[in-house]
């Protein structure tokens, strides 16, 4: 992809951004990408901000295992969530890269 990018960048002044912006494939790709990004972002922010809210309620103040209370378990779950979503992102981003490359290829073929 970067090779293609460089090729296009080399004759950069000639990029017709309007044309790419109007391409069906480009808009589908951006829509899919944004839905994924913001969907996940809202999800993890929700789980995150529930911690300081629930932490002061009896729900998370009970003991879970031994003296370990649920706030620690919840916090640990947020750590694990971070690692899982990080891995998920890296995986999804590789697909997005392919989609972006395909869009640029289509643009190249159509002739700038």
């Amino acid at each position: 992809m970067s090779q293609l990018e460089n090729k296009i960048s080399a004759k950069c002044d000639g990029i017709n951004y309007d044309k790419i912006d109007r391409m069906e494939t480009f808009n589908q790709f951006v829509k899919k990408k944004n839905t994924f990004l913001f969907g996940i972002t809202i999800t993890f922010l929700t789980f995150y901000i529930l911690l300081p809210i629930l932490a002061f309620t009896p729900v998370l103040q009970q003991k879970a295992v031994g003296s370990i209370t649920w706030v620690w378990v919840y916090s640990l779950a947020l750590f694990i969530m971070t690692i899982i979503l990080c891995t998920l992102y890296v995986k999804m981003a590789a697909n997005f890269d392919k989609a972006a490359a395909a869009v640029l290829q289509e643009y190249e073929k159509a002739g700038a």
Partner: protein
Amino acid sequence: MNLVSAGFFIGIVGLTLIVTYIASKRTSSASDFYTAGGGLKGWQNGFAIAGDYLSAAAFLGVSGAIALTGFDGFFFSVGYVVANLVLLYIIAEPMRNLGRYTLADMLTARFNEKRIRGVAATGTIIIVILYMIAQLVGAGALIKLLFGIEYWMAVLIVGVMMTTYVLFGGMTATSWVQIIKAGLLLFGTTLLAFLVFSKFDFNLVKMFDTVSTNYGDEYLVPGMKYTSTIDSVSMMLALVLGTSGLPHILMRFFTVKDAKTARASISWTTWITAIFFSLTIFLGFGAMHFVGFDKIIAENAAGNTAAPLLAEFLGGNILLSFICAVAFATILAVVSGLVLTGASAISHDIYGEILKDGKLTEKQQVLAARIGSISIAIVSIILALFAQSLNVSFLVSFAFCIGASANLPVILYTIYWKKFNSNGAVAAMVTGLVSCLVLGALGPNIWSPTGNAIFVGEPIVNLAVPAIITIPLSFFAGYLGSILTAHKVEQAEAERVYKEIRVKAHTGISVQDVSH
């Protein structure tokens, strides 16, 4: 001080100076100076970002806070870790695709106006200075503790060293100092945590049971420091969103060649910070149990020396010296990154682009960058000399609050909102900045009825960190500013630029060409 500690310090200082010397030979252009030529690898930048994250406030402050207040201290750890996701999901890649040296470069890729650059640069300078004073005051206190030298001399030593790294080695040296320091810190923390855990027979439940039996259950739930939900929600919002608005973190995305490497960087950072902050539990509880509340408090009321004291208990003078040397490296690395970021706002944005219209030769740019570094260093050193008695932890949380309120909304709108315009951008940034400063000035860190703040009196706004008010305010101002002035904007041109931004942000096309 003795031979062992002197050895560790000289070793670390020597190593970083060698790195600076090598880097200085490779620093000839403005791009080398500000962004290491954009040539860092993913893991390198990942370690360097982790280096920025794991400031003395994080390492010394968080473990101290857990030792003294139990779970309340761990709130910070959670915030720092989850903040990676915000960076990864919505900031890192578009930032890399649109920007060049600074946050202002990225914003002016869409709105090429001097006032936008001016406001963004001002915000950057304010955040950098607040953050730097906090680090320098902490450094002064730590070095004073270790060597018994005067505070002013300690600040001067750190000040001179950080300026040396930046001046001669630019971003290459600064990045490598960060990488070395992050590696050392991770090693030191793992060692300490391992030793603590071994004393509890590697049994997590036993460790928590010990805390519960000996010190009381209140350490295992929140409430010792944060008593209200709204206060802690506000602080947590500042942490998770502020990271993505901190200029020295954002600047790190310009040191890699493309969005893919930017993403790899954050992936590395996520793992490093997740491991590091998990270990803060062991450091905090270890210090609580083995060093003890009274001894921690006697050394430093805020608990900032809890981790070094724990090291002394676990490994005697050698481990103490090592941990102190690592803490010293941490401070040096973080302040160097801050100097560089402040310098970029002064010399690239304000001098180069606003005053000189970007008409500087490569040589002049590098010279301006060096002069900018010296100026920002001198200003921070002088302020730090006067700030000795200031409570520094609130300065750090304030920097996060400003980052979240003045920078994050405008970044998001710039990338993702079609109808955003330059008036909205100025409105969002100014509102975020001013509301933080005003609400902060009316808040409990400045006013306290018992006299443990700067003035005696009832705080008008009872929020330590006003993020819960200022972030929505800034988003709203950006929205309102754009909508209300929509008729004044050349719509066709604005739409054309937005299309360009959209294509660039999502495809990474012509990264080298963007911005001005």
